[in-house]
């Protein structure tokens, strides 16, 4: 009984570690391909253009609306709380840290994951089940260059650009709330933000958004690739992919908080 229990634990541990290293290997292969100029053939560039359109441009109306609605409310609450606790002097740094370092990249990554991550996971899983991936392999078409790289790069570009858009929208909403709560005029608000913002904040926004964009596409692709050959396996693949993706997003968020606190 005890021996069986130890065997089960051992099996689970070995399988978890081997899948982790397999995923790590896949990630490194994708990164190597990303650095190779030969990967950027005309077909890849065409797919990349389309993916950027689907991921970043198609979402703009919904994204802007959500940013105005939720972003304004959240920044309003942050400003109201800061005022209540007498932190008016620190309001610039509070807004910048909250909006640029934390909220914009995370919110954008969540939205892109829900919209494009699921779509990519399903697409790759369906292609896998329909043997379309095998057809591409038979024609010696590199799946990483043609299918995965455009999606990963578009994810990175989309999350970075939409995070910046989100930050701009929230900072604009922030002005309305500072005007309402503190009677602050636009020039004071502008100088407050300029004085509070540092190069570090922009670097954090950029790196974090890129990391979010990378995993937002990489994990659904990997999950789609692991789908077994049955249509019933597609929902399971999407479910597993999304769970892993959300764990990865939270992991990056926590890791970035830890690194910033050092």
């Amino acid at each position, binding site marked *: 009984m005890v021996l069986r229990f130890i065997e089960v634990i051992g099996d689970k541990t070995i399988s978890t570690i081997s899948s982790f290293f397999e995923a790590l290997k896949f990630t490194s292969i994708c990164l190597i391909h990303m650095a190779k100029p030969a990967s950027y*053939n*005309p*077909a*890849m*560039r*065409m797919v990349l253009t389309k993916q950027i359109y689907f991921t970043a441009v198609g979402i703009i109306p919904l994204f802007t609306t959500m940013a105005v609605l939720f972003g304004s409310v959240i920044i309003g609450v942050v400003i109201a709380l800061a005022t209540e606790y007498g932190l008016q002097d620190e309001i610039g740094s509070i807004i910048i840290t909250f909006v640029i370092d934390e909220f914009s990249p995370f919110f954008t990554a969540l939205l892109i994951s829900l919209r494009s991550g699921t779509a990519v996971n399903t697409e790759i899983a369906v292609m896998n089940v329909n043997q379309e991936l095998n057809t591409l392999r038979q*024609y*010696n*078409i*590199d799946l990483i*260059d*043609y299918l995965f790289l455009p999606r990963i790069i578009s994810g990175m570009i989309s999350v970075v650009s939409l995070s910046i858009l989100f930050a701009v929208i929230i900072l604009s909403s922030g002005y309305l709330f500072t005007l309402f709560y503190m009677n602050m005029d636009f020039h004071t608000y502008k100088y407050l933000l300029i004085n509070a913002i540092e190069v570090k904040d922009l670097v954090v926004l950029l790196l974090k958004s890129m990391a979010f964009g990378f995993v937002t596409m990489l994990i659904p692709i990997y999950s789609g690739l692991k789908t077994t050959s049955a249509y019933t396996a597609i929902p399971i693949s999407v479910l597993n992919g999304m769970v892993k993706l959300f764990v990865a997003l939270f992991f990056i968020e926590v890791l970035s908080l830890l690194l910033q606190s050092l």
Partner: protein
Amino acid sequence: MLENIALIKEVHEHMPTKKAQEEAKESLKKIELENIGLNRLNQCNSYEVFCVCFIRALMTKESDVIIVTPFHLIDNLRNIKTIISIVEKLQVKKNILILDTISNEIHYKDSSCNIVK
């Protein structure tokens, strides 16, 4: 369908998308299927899908193209002459090999194929 055919040359020969699609369009025109250029897979019948797969295979650098059981690939195909006519219209310079089962032998009657049993 154009993208599907053009892909091979874009990837293997780094041919610009526009030029590769022009070549694909020309090939489709030769077999009077230029109207399916912008169709998706679900908008094409089995004959059109076969033609696209065949043209795509011709775009590769391989010297032989093998067609496996064409009577299963194309619905209501009665005679191999339809396939031979496609090959002729496309002025194919590659070796075309057709693999089929003996039960379909009747469909190859009076055809110009070299039959090897």
